[in-house]
């Protein structure tokens, strides 16, 4: 029983990591309607940035989060402006190739700059264990859960109360109508991509003290993030959060009860099943089919 509780606590912690990574992907897909295959590489860029700020300037990763979020916002906005924007009207396969190409280029750029070594930040305070009943979790994991909840809540408030947020929602719901209403759709897209990318920046600063960074770290997380987003119904932040929790717990339980090397098989199988049988996501919020 203790073990089951520990596994579920562990799953929730993994889930909060997946959630915070998936928020950005959901935003970008929900608003710009582009499936960003380079999402994981944005995380990788953020993690290297956090690492450099920590290792060279001695900045605590939670403080480094601020400059990293700004950096990732700029990176995202530039990607939208110079790569996605010109392709918005292109055929879908061209968009896919473009983001796949970006992903390949960024992975190899990191390999060029940093080599294949692991870089990790030693921040003992973040790795401190917290006892919770009979279970253990890390300070850094608890922080991630809080940040994920706060981020999703904050984004919700932003989208529903500010004029900019309303414009973003209008654009997401109906691009042409928004255009007619005088919403500068292209600039909203740039902002939205930047915002989604900035969320990844926050995620990377939170993850860096827990997991070492390598050039290929993104490809590990990106598929999981896609699973989460599809599970959550593609466009819903709350859906993504719940999806992330489900995948986290499945990850943890199947690692113990099935086999540690088959846990990815388990959630990829869930992913395929959801895509095939319920493409609107678990809660019927999105659409994977036309």
């Amino acid at each position, binding site marked *: 029983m203790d*073990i089951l509780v520990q596994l579920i606590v562990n799953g929730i912690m*993994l889930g909060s990591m997946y959630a915070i990574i998936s928020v950005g992907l959901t935003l970008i897909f929900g608003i710009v309607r582009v499936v960003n295959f380079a999402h994981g590489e944005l995380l990788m860029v953020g993690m290297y940035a956090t690492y450099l700020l920590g290792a060279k300037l001695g900045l605590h990763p939670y403080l480094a989060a601020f400059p990293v979020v700004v950096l990732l916002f700029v990176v995202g906005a530039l990607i939208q402006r110079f790569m996605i924007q010109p392709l918005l009207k292109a055929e879908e396969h061209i968009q896919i190739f473009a983001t796949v190409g970006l992903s390949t280029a960024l992975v190899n750029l990191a390999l060029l700059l940093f080599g*294949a070594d692991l870089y990790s930040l*030693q921040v003992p305070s973040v790795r401190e264990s917290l006892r919770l009943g009979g279970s253990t979790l890390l300070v850094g994991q608890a922080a991630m859960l809080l940040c994920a909840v706060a981020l999703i809540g904050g984004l919700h408030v932003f989208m529903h109360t500010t004029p900019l947020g309303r414009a973003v929602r209008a654009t997401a719901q109906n691009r042409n109508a928004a255009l007619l209403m005088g919403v500068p759709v292209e600039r909203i897209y740039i902002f939205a991509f930047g915002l989604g990318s900035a969320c990844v920046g926050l995620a990377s600063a939170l993850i860096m003290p827990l997991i070492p960074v390598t050039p290929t770290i993104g490809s590990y997380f990106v598929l999981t993030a896609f699973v989460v987003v599809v599970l959550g119904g593609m466009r819903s932040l709350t859906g993504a959060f719940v999806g992330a929790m489900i995948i986290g717990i499945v*990850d*943890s339980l199947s690692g*113990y009860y099935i086999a*540690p090397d088959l846990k990815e098989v388990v959630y990829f199988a869930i992913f395929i099943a959801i895509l095939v049988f319920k493409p609107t996501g678990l809660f019927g919020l999105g659409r994977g089919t036309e």
Partner: protein
Amino acid sequence: MESLTRRGALAGGVALAAAPLLGSAALAQSGPIKVGALFPFSGGLALLGDESYRGVEIAIEERNAAGGVKGRPIQVVRGDAVDPNQAVGEARRLTSVERVTCIFGTFSSSLCLAATQVTELAQIPYFELGAISDPITERGFRYIFRTNATASGFANMMVDSIRDAVAPAYKVDPKSLKVGIIHEDSLYGQTVAGYQKKRVQELGLNLVETLPYSARSVDLTPVVLRLKSAGVDVVLQTSYQNDTVLFFRQMREQGYRPRAAIGAGGGYSLRDTMEAVGAQHMEGALNVDFTQFRTNPAGAPGIEEFVRKYQAKYNMAPRSGHSLCNYMGAVVFLDAMQAASDLRAAAIREAVLAVDKPVGSTATGWGAKFNQAGQNERADPFLMQWQGGELVTVFPASAAMAPVKPVLGTA
């Protein structure tokens, strides 16, 4: 030299077209001897591939400074193998375009397996200095030779250590210890773990868990919990750096303390791993690997000399023991080439099989004596232990710097 090239060309099936090119080969008779160096110089394995190559480079410079082989200098042609397809391509290029006399390689077993399928058909000797997969020398090839220990050597040493080192240190019966095998699921982990299972059965030890996992995993808690609930006393782990660090951290977080953890080189050998885990938590972790630098020089003549040369050439301390092992192997094979009657493959094979160096006579502390399959039978890996933040050789006694400590983690 010309007759060699002609033979190689015939074997390659391109005799007709090669004829006009033989002019340059004739020149080569007095010129340098070309040898290939096939390593992963780019891609994910680049770091250790390059570290391995440095050992070869130093051995060849040493040999050239001493007058080369048969009075001719040696010229290295590098081949970059990132994946098996490229290993095949580069092996083709080295054997047909560069017309090398032999090839040194490869660090990675899958690259070696792919490349040697080419060189064997081309009848070019292939000197493997670092890849551990057993089948490399089990395919009945005539022109593959390997100096280093194999996966089964690693696995046997790890399992034997339970009987020979761990149980005596704790003063218990080895059969009373519960053994758990965990390993990352790429070629390295799967191969070593396979031989471990076999050896555990041979010795009649009590194996209670075998858990493969992906080295890219970000969470090994399920693995730790499985070991914990099975009450495993001795963990045999075959792992890279990331998963080693993760395992030690999560063992501590979950309050799991086995009596011993034995690694198969990889992540256990790296100073970075110890620093990431913390010296006090890594204290007592055992490790089976190729010879490392903290080895008694009395059992490994030339090791200090090598470190000095490495420092001078690259202006840094060696990044891992790979360079040392590759250096040792390259020295053995260059000596054999010097001793060979000529530089044809058959003569080189004859010379390599004639090599007979006792254990403790090389820079790695190994001996050299090759069986018909080309495998060095005097290359056993050593057992080491992290003690006070240093990886110290503890077994066998001839190379040991300190006795085994019965402890894992001090926290």
